[in-house]
């Protein structure tokens, strides 16, 4: 994976740049010693590392604005960072960049239950947003797997999803407004506590722009009352394609579960060994969760079970209690950790039309044999968001490259069947060079034109999202 050559003019001015930033930020908000900046050298895509020039931790919108003004004036790239849980390298630094961390922006600014929103600073973690409203029975719906750690700022940058977005939507569907700082330091409000934009939907454009258009410092988020209850059913099948067909039938039937999760044999075995979840050993496992009152849950689960039985499941285990529900979810929620215990892996995130599930699972298996790398599948089946985990050995020379090559083939396959490269993790650096497989030159030009408007000097997270050769002219012009 290639990154642009660091600008020597910036590297040579490191001392002066740090002084300027220290001049506009409180003591301790500029992190610049070699050992300290190492904490920012990568995000959750740990295969790629590079310590930044320095990292800054502003504690207010005004401090963000002051720091960006300095960077803009000195022409220094800025890489915004939430909690650094990106699986796509969205917060990967370059040696000549300033990391702008949102960790100190973690307050709750306003909660409004009658109008059903909460306004928070963007560094607040996803789960602690729900934490701020749950005693009143409310929650914030998007629930990425990293929700304990990940920041709302990163959720907005990547338009994060989660297991329950089949019913509740992803970040963009739950975001009402932001306060944002542009690269030149301008502070602007976009959206608010009301619904929909007066003019062009800039909010929709900002959500998912991977920190390339501005730095979001505050967010107004929709909150919902918790359902009365929720319960899953676990079903096992001896054929992955049959499990795929079952998913499609459930969706068609008019029941709308809040989640439909899928795991294949490799993941079932690994997670069961890791978590003692008591999963059946079979080719494919589905966890289907529904919500409502006890009677409503019973009714929906009976419909779902009826559909499942038509596909001859080897196991059909309906949760009857909170303990049984927790046991069913235990394995799924620890799947990524469990896989990490047995091996290094690369987690892909391509999304496909649900109807193409059987084909893509079959072809992924063929690719696994071709490359000699094992693949585990654990994903949100209801919306076709695949998460193939390709296992490799980070200590074996050439294995990472082999894994990347196979990953690229799987993602191209997702695009070719009518899907996309990434459903919820973002492009970052990881999928950057595959963008031309999904988009034409015109498609990419239209997107880059948006960046030209918000960040004309291409200083915000410049080496991400777009293939380096595609964005080169713009980045070089900025230098």
């Amino acid at each position, binding site marked *: 994976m290639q990154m642009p050559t660091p600008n020597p003019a910036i590297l040579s001015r490191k001392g002066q740049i740090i002084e300027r930033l220290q001049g506009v930020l409180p003591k301790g908000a500029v992190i610049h010693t070699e050992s300290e900046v190492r904490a920012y050298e990568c995000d959750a895509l740990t295969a790629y590392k590079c310590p930044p020039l320095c990292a800054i931790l502003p504690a207010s919108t005004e401090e963000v604005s002051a720091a960006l003004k300095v960077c803009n004036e000195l022409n220094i790239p800025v890489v915004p960072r939430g909690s650094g849980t990106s699986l796509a390298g969205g917060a990967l630094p370059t040696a000549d960049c300033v990391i702008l961390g949102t960790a100190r922006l973690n307050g709750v600014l306003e909660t409004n239950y*009658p109008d*059903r929103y909460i306004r928070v600073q963007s560094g607040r973690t996803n789960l602690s947003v729900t934490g701020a409203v749950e005693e009143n029975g409310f929650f914030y719906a998007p629930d990425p797997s990293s929700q304990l750690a990940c920041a709302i700022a990163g959720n907005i940058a990547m338009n994060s999803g989660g297991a329950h977005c089949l019913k509740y939507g992803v970040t963009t569907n739950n975001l009402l407004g932001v306060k944002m700082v542009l690269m030149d330091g301008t502070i602007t409000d976009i959206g608010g506590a009301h619904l929909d934009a*007066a003019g*062009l*939907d800039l909010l929709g454009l900002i959500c998912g722009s991977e920190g390339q258009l501005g730095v979001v410092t505050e967010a107004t988020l929709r909150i919902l009352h918790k359902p009365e209850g929720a319960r899953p059913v676990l079903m096992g099948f001896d054929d992955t394609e049959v499990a795929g067909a079952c998913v*499609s039938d459930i969706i068609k039937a008019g029941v709308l579960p809040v989640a439909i999760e899928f795991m294949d044999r490799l993941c079932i075995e690994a997670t069961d060994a890791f978590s003692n979840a008591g999963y059946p050993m079979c080719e494919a496992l589905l966890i289907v969760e529904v919500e409502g009152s006890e009677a409503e849950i019973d009714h929906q689960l009976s419909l779902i079970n009826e559909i499942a039985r038509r596909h001859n499941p080897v196991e059909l285990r309906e949760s009857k209690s909170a303990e049984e529900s927790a046991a069913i979810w235990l394995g799924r929620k620890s799947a990524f950790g469990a896989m990490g215990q047995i091996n290094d892996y690369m987690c892909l995130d391509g999304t496909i039309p649900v109807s193409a599930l059987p084909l893509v699972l079959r072809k992924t298996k063929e690719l696994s044999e071709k490359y000699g790398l094992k693949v585990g599948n654990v994903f949100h089946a209801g919306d076709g968001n695949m998460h193939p985990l390709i296992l490799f050995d980070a200590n074996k020379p050439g294995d990472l490259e082999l894994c990347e090559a196979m990953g690229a083939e799987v993602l191209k396959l997702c695009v070719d069947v009518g899907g996309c490269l*990434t459903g*919820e993790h973002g492009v970052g650096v990881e999928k950057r060079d595959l963008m031309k497989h999904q988009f034409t030159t015109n498609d990419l030009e239209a*997107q880059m034109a948006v960046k030209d*408007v918000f960040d004309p000097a291409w200083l915000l997270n410049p080496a991400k999202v777009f293939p380096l050769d595609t964005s080169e002219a713009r980045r070089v012009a900025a230098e």
Partner: protein
Amino acid sequence: MTPTTEAELADVIKAATGPLQVKGGATRDIGKPVDGELLRTTGLSGITLYEPGALTLVAQAGTPIATIEAALDAENQRFAFEPMDHRVLLGTSGTPTIGGVVAANVSGARRIAVGACRDHLLGVRFVDGQGNIVKNGGRVMKNVTGYDLVKLMAGSYGTLGVLSEVSMKVLPKPETSMTLRLDDLSIGDSVAAMSAALGSAYEISGAAMVSGATYLRLEGFDASVAYRADQLSTLLAQYGAIGRVAHAPSTKLWRNIKNVEVFKDHPTVTRVSVQPSVAPKVANALEGNANVDVALDWGGGLMWVGLRGDDAKATTIHQQLQQIAKREGGHATLFKASTSMRTSSSVFQPEAATVATLSAALRAKFDPRNILNTGLMS
């Protein structure tokens, strides 16, 4: 001009030497009146792909909504965002198209529960102001590949590009529905009752106040709807007697609400989006004016203000609404008005300076010759 393929559409725009007036079914004369040669999208018609099991439908922009709804009906599915049909309110004829619905981000009563049109729009193909064909998004439920121009195109009224094809999320129809009715509440009490219901676990899919009655819609399985109706009746007991409207009349009622038929005889209508608790304040500011009628949707978050009387009086009130929206956070759009009033008014809420600058710069990128529905969104 009525191109019949995307390539023809691109050629027409490329060859244009002056402004173009872009229209789909022409059922909606909204926005500043614009000049230019008429460019119709009705020649781009037909459902390209419909996969009920994947909850996805792709159609060319000029496809009539009626054609799509017939296809969805056959599979017991629907557009959950419930797009408004403007013909009754605006007194227009013609055939609403999916491209028109997307271009104006048209969403009905269910917007509070399931999101707006933009939230159900999965992908777009469009031709920009220079004749370039651009695609964005796709036909899958989750997609964060590159910038989300899909949202940008929804509600851009043809000012950034002309849609050629859209890809939509569709959802199953519920088994049944029922509406709870509360009578004679003040606007303050109506909003409070709607907020209590919307802030409960009982999944309200419509909350409106029209002609003095407050309505709460429940949808789903038969037993579930009955259960939730009982729970809500207890929850809202303080607001007085609660009536029940059965599935068939309820369906008709919500069609009228979404289409704002109550103001079909009002010459001027302003549409206001605010947070629900602001709605009573707005209504209070207008109180005592005999020429003003208010209806609420989205639990109070959407106010329809029907204005009687001449343009001068209506203009004053529209301006007042835009000032209140500016102060309280929100926006007011002149939705129905005479051509002369639309020409002389701020039809769309004037934007804050930075937002206006960014929006103008985006338009200059996507339509550098400034030929697509020029000035419509002002």
